[in-house]
């Protein structure tokens, strides 16, 4: 991004712009601050007057682990997300390489089918997938959460874009050195595509961590439920005096994605720009 604004707006628009942005930011920030504030309130203050706690306490953060097996849910989410995203990256990398670096019969059709899969809404596929997973005995298990989603067409698409834009001389020199396509992938492409992989990994991570519909369908016991299902069940069980703990749970469930974002902030936005979403 440039250091100076590319376009300076004339006065009425500038003021309007500032107001619009201010309102938009407020509408996002205020509810979230209220959530954090409530999570720090002791039980007496929960339904009391002021939005912020008079005597803040971390008690809710401890209590939420007593009310629901949040640790177990975190473990399920962390493990299934790590395995799933890892699998998605490997599979997408291999597929993107195949699409980008080779010519073979049917390549374009298969790529179109891959993109088509990205556009297919869940509604069409969830029921037979559920029946299939049940039949395989993977209902209510990590497998059921991981395997159906291992194909990540968006990852294939983005990685292929990056590979197509790869500087040719690097690859050609590898070829001249006698490296076959497989080794070219490992030695040349992989080291250089890491920023894009990292960005895609983050997006896939957020997608997986925040997923609700599929875990709702496929899990039924605590041993497989993810944090999103867990916190939703807490909402149902909550009786009004647990609001502080509920808000603490909400904060905890959101922390991983926030942390990951803060760490890799620039990278995500860069990848979007360079992947050429201009079309």
């Amino acid at each position, binding site marked *: *991004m440039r*250091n*100076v*604004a*590319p376009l300076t*707006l004339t006065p009425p628009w500038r003021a309007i*712009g500032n107001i*619009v*942005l201010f309102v*938009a*930011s407020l509408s*996002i*920030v205020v*509810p*979230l601050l*209220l959530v954090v504030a409530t999570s720090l309130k002791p039980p007496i203050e929960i*339904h009391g*007057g002021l939005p912020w706690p008079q005597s803040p306490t971390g008690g809710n953060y401890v209590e939420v682990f007593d009310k629901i097996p949040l640790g177990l849910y975190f473990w399920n989410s962390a493990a299934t997300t790590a395995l799933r995203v890892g699998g998605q990256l490997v*599979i997408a990398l*291999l*597929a993107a*390489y195949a699409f980008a*670096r080779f*010519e*073979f019969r049917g*390549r374009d059709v*298969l790529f179109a*089918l*891959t993109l088509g899969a990205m556009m297919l*809404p*869940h*509604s069409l*596929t*969830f*029921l*037979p*997938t*559920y*029946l*299939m997973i049940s039949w395989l005995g993977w209902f209510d298990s990590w497998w059921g959460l991981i395997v*159906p989603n*291992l*194909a990540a067409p968006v990852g294939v698409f983005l990685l292929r874009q990056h590979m197509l834009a790869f500087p*040719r001389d690097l690859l050609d020199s590898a*070829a001249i050195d006698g490296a076959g396509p*497989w080794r070219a992938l490992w030695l040349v492409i992989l080291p250089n595509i890491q920023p894009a992989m990292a960005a895609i990994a983050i997006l896939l991570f957020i997608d997986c961590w925040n997923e*609700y519909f599929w875990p709702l369908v496929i899990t039924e016991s605590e041993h497989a439920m993810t944090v999103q299902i867990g*916190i*939703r069940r807490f*909402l149902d069980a909550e009786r009004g005096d647990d609001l502080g703990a*509920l808000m603490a749970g*909400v904060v905890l*469930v959101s922390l991983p994605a*926030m942390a990951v*974002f803060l760490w890799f*902030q620039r990278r995500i*936005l860069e990848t*979007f720009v360079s992947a050429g*979403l*201009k079309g």
Partner: protein
Amino acid sequence: MSASIALPAAATLARPRARRRAGNLLPWLLLSPLLLLLAAFTYWPLLHTIYLSVVDVRLFQPDRFVGLDNFTGLFRSPSFAAASWNTVIYIALSLPLKVLLPIPIAVFVWCAGARMASLHRSILFVPTLLSFVVVSIVWIWMLNPVMGMVQSGLRPLGLQMPALLSDAATAIHAIIGISAWKVIGFNALLYLAGLASIPRELIESMRLDGASDWRITRSLLLPLLSPTIYFVAITSVLFTVQQVFTPINIMTGGGPSNATTNLFYLAYEMAFESFNIGFASATALLLFVGLGALAALKAWLLGRRVHYA
């Protein structure tokens, strides 16, 4: 392996855009996991849904072909009419919020000073990081008319907020608003990425010509953003109905009185609450056809107005 070394080197020199000719199996090997997964978990279920919509699945007995009975039974169900109508409303009202509203936001951020722009970009991305579960819980609590945060703010002023989520007239709008709240920031960032590539010189020369802000926007920014707008519009049409599943499930369960259900939610309910597999599959299929038609229509309408740089 040795034979293939000489060939690529020669090919590179001869044709700058040469790719490796694969008479071998390698690309297929590389693609096989993806293709297997897509076949098993995307395309086979697609076909299976079509099959399930025309049969009656019975326990301990083979499936029985029933033709269009599932569809006609579905049409007679009162929930279907409500769900269909609501689907149209969800899409129609979400589009301006999700496609158009982020445009001025993106432009304003783009024109803000560097530090402010960076701050705004981060804030705008936050709702994307939060899960829809979290967003639904937060807004349930915000909008509760007795004990919620908004009401706590209004009570000292002597006002009473309406029960937005329990009133059939307003519930769907509340959910549309909440889902827009979650998505607007992300779409604005997409537009921002599109704006980032516009060369300053172009703008400066237009300024020198005396162009007003509006003129610049209309003749320069919008056309250059049009591919992104197109993309956002198509994906909004296809995915809005699916995105609102979580708020519906958590906040209203499709009610009150079918006010917030839609065809995707109905398919889920038919499958996992009523356990009517035939109806669920028929609903899913109809939704797919409807969305496909809508997306194609939109693509055709907008496609003619997209400029590719």
